């Protein structure tokens, strides 16, 4: 059965909205924002690990809960495509196989986010 939502390719352009990072930097300073961004990327990977574990346990309900937390985190940092994939996992997947498909895209996107943030100069 097809997903109600659509697993799209990542958009052309940065995986994180520059304005979101700039806003954070203005609000809390360059050093603190850099530290928080590192926490963010570490947390993204932890979420992916948790989602993998949820799906390995065939626990779709927990997968959706985990995805909700990830969605909020991505919203905060303007990681829009990651957020959209997390939203698909939370709201639109109906079974574990669909969720695995979305998660594979999400893992790729998290890699893009990590690279972008590592090279972000502010």
């Amino acid at each position: 059965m097809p997903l109600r939502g659509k697993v799209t390719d990542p958009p052309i352009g940065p995986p994180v909205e520059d304005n979101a990072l700039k806003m954070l930097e203005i609000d809390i300073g360059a050093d603190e924002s850099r530290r928080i961004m590192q926490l963010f990327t570490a947390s993204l990977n932890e979420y992916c690990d948790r989602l993998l574990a949820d799906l390995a346990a065939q626990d779709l309900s927990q997968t959706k809960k985990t995805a909700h937390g990830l969605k909020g985190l991505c919203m905060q940092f303007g990681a829009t495509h990651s957020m959209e994939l997390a939203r698909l996992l939370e709201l639109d997947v109906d079974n574990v196989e669909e969720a695995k498909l979305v998660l594979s895209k999400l893992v790729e996107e998290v890699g893009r986010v990590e690279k972008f943030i590592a090279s972000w100069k502010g």
Partner: protein
Amino acid sequence: MAQPEKTSVNDAASRNLDRVRVLLIEDERVIREIVVRLLRTIGIREVTEAATAEDGWHLLVGQDQQSFHVLITDLTLPGASGGTLVRKLRELPSPRAKTFPVIVLTGSNDLQTYKLVEPWGISSYLIKPVSAGLLRAAIEKAVFPESRKET
């Protein structure tokens, strides 16, 4: 429910936020850390953090009760939701519980979720991403409602 002492933050002579005490309930630790930093940016020094609605409840009205001026809560939390906590708060007999300022901070940007909590008297409904400016406006509206009306 604990009352803030008489030296209220509503003192017209001082509208800075350094005496405002915030209870923050958010299970996502990075978001929690960002919000605490943003609150400090706008001058709020006293922030008590909880990761679950149950822990927040104990701090707000229960066994670990402390005095706060405003609650900032996520909605989707492990165990009971932030919405359930707000509903329970409003159902308490104390007049203060009926009007205690609550700011919702959420990743749910759908009208359906908003309509679930709106009847419980939410001061502001903030959708992530949150910034220092948004938090300041929401807290001023919650804690200094009269001054917001004047301006």
